[in-house]
């Protein structure tokens, strides 16, 4: 190996090692080294958000297809009901889930929950 090639190869290797070690050099002693995995509730919320977006997108597309004439009046009347129900179900489930999450947060922080506040 020529001297120049040796120097360049060493520089390349050193640069790569620094890049790889950067997260440890930047944070030698972090408060937390956890990845922050999604818990079960968060996963469920993600699924509900996807279901909500899917239903709303489907409704929007159906409306447009009906307007263009690709979907007939008869088909539109049959399809729009279930899609609206799907969207409403997803939105209600999200609201319910948000309410439960807020209540859990209140309990965790030792604050009175909304129900207790109202009754008390």
């Amino acid at each position, binding site marked *: *190996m*020529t001297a*120049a*090639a*040796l120097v*360049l*190869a060493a520089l*390349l*290797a050193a*640069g*790569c090692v620094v*890049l*790889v*070690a*950067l*997260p*440890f050099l930047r*944070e030698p002693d*972090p408060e*937390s*080294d*956890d*990845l*922050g*995995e*999604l818990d079960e509730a*968060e*996963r469920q*919320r*993600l*699924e509900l*958000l*996807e*279901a909500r*977006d*899917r239903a709303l*997108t*489907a409704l929007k*597309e*159906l409306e*447009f*297809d009906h*307007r*263009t*004439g*690709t*979907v*007939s009046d*008869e*088909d539109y009347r*049959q*399809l729009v009901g*279930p899609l609206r129900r799907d969207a409403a179900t997803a939105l209600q489930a999200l609201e319910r889930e948000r309410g439960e999450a807020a209540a859990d947060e209140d309990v965790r922080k030792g604050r009175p929950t909304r129900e207790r506040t109202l009754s008390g």
Partner: protein
Amino acid sequence: MPELGHAALLVTLGLVLYALGAGAAAAHLGRRRLAHSARNALVAAFFSTLVAAAVLVTALVRHDFSLVYVAEHTSRELPTWYTISAFWGGQEGSLLLWLLVLTGFGALAVRLNRRWAGDLIVWVVPVFAAVATFFAFLLVAVANPFETQPAPSDGAGLNPSLQNPYMLAHPPLLYLGYVGLTVPFAFALAALLSGRTDERWLIATRRWTLLAWTALGVGQLLGAHWAYVEVGWGGYYAWDPVENAALMPWLAATAFLHSVMIQEKRGMLRIWNMVLVIGAFSLSLFGTFLTRSGVVNSIHSFTQSSIGPWFLGFIGVTVGVSLAVLFWRLPLLRSPTRLESPFSREAAFLYNNLLLLALCLTILWGVVYPLLSEAVRGESVVLGRSYYDFFLRIFGLPLLLLMGMGPLVAWRRASFRSLVTTFRWPTLVALVAGVVLILLGSGSSIPGLVTYTFASFVGATIVIEFARGTRARKALGATSWLGAFTSLIGRNRRRYGGYVVHAAIVLLAIGVAGSSAFQTVAPDTKLRPGQSMRVGGYTLRYRQLTQHQGANALEERAHLAVLRGGKPLGSLAAGKNAYAVEQQVSNEVGIRTDWLRLEDLFVIADQIDPNGTVYFRVFVKPLVNLIWIAGIVFVLGSVITLWPDAREQRRLVSRSYEVGIPAASS
């Protein structure tokens, strides 16, 4: 500096091994800094591979024949552009290109999706690294592009078939396609390994799949044009095993791009989509194996090599591990919804998927049958053109028809009355087209006539969809018709870009049918200077034979005057190039394009005698130019579909914030 190139490859191997090990450990143990470190290793691997690639390109340009690779694939007389294209003209260089694109795509895909899929990215890194480790190992241990020797005075030159402008773009585009399919594969496997089988992996990879699919499609069309103008046999697609190798992953990716919509809209086909992604990636590996192992007899297989068993082993491991992980995660992939009606858009997409897969498997069988027959019976039996043409008609024509029907059927279910109303105009257009074509004499080829009729049907559906959509946008408040049209496309690029791609397929189908079913072929004709021949309404008068010493070849051309109805249309030249360094001769065909009739007059100088007598083979190919125009329309449709959608990005980021998905830090 070949030592620097080899050292850079060793560094790459070390980095991707680290990314694999550290990435897998970080994902399994949930360690944040280790995950970032593994990701940085993947990025660093791209830069070290870039250094290796730069060293090889420099050696090629400087004619450093002390490198075996440079000496075997270039010569001093080779023009500079072809000297650079020798980077992917040989096995070692093309594997280096694979690794370069792979690490580049890996680093980019990880960076672009880190804001809303950070938890998935953690698992994507080790999958990418596993694939990169295989290629880095091959380059370091089996097919080293930096092997040295005492430098000879000149190199062996580049295969003359590769000395064509199309070869500057065709192989890299195919590699972009092959390697690009690693992205959906890595995200799919990451989703399975992590258990996060929500739709984020689909969204993260949709554009990558489209990009890879577009590159594969354009690469194949450029390859077809190269075969048409350079190989000189009178066609553009010969069902050659290596051509098929690129077509198979393209078909699997086409099926995925359609079925992914069913998962997004209806939450169905989750297992099927995983299978398609694994299949497309495995077929891309298989394609690289076919091209580079020399296991099949093909004009594209430029090398006989020792990498074949390694590739087969890796393909086996990839398929085995992927299917095992898929089986393990089956419970997570159960679909919440079912097919409601056989007359729905999702059903049409499903039929389209089955036909695409059937065509893909048929081609796969045609490719592997000679290998199997040789292994079992000791005799290679090649399935010829008639086998492929038969199945192309059986599966391709219904596919063409479905392409027009699918988009006009409603999601979930469509009533019979609605179907009749929807399809009456396209059906009428198709019937009128069929009758007119029969009256014009196109009934001589039934498959050709059916293709034209179906193409008319699909074309009518596309026009109707654009017209209705534009009218609806205008009614919704667009100020002008042009504004309504652009807003229609802008608001749903995927749908209307898809229609443009469908239009490209229609043009392609018409071009293929026209140029194959309705072409005129003149039998081999021997002419001396001054003599004439007639074919398909043209008269060709052979004027003279000339010789010219080009940059690296002796160019011999027979010049012909072209007339139609006694009116001179110009001239064309067909002949041969004799490459002294490579000691090979190539056919150089003469083509005269009539853009008004969209047909080509295609002349091959099959044999040139020393006394100036030439044996000509002449074809008149109607509508062949629609195939190349289809390529331009295909790219346009792909660009519309690929164009970033800011609204979708905002929705995804806000969704991840709502859930609290941790973004991977930059």
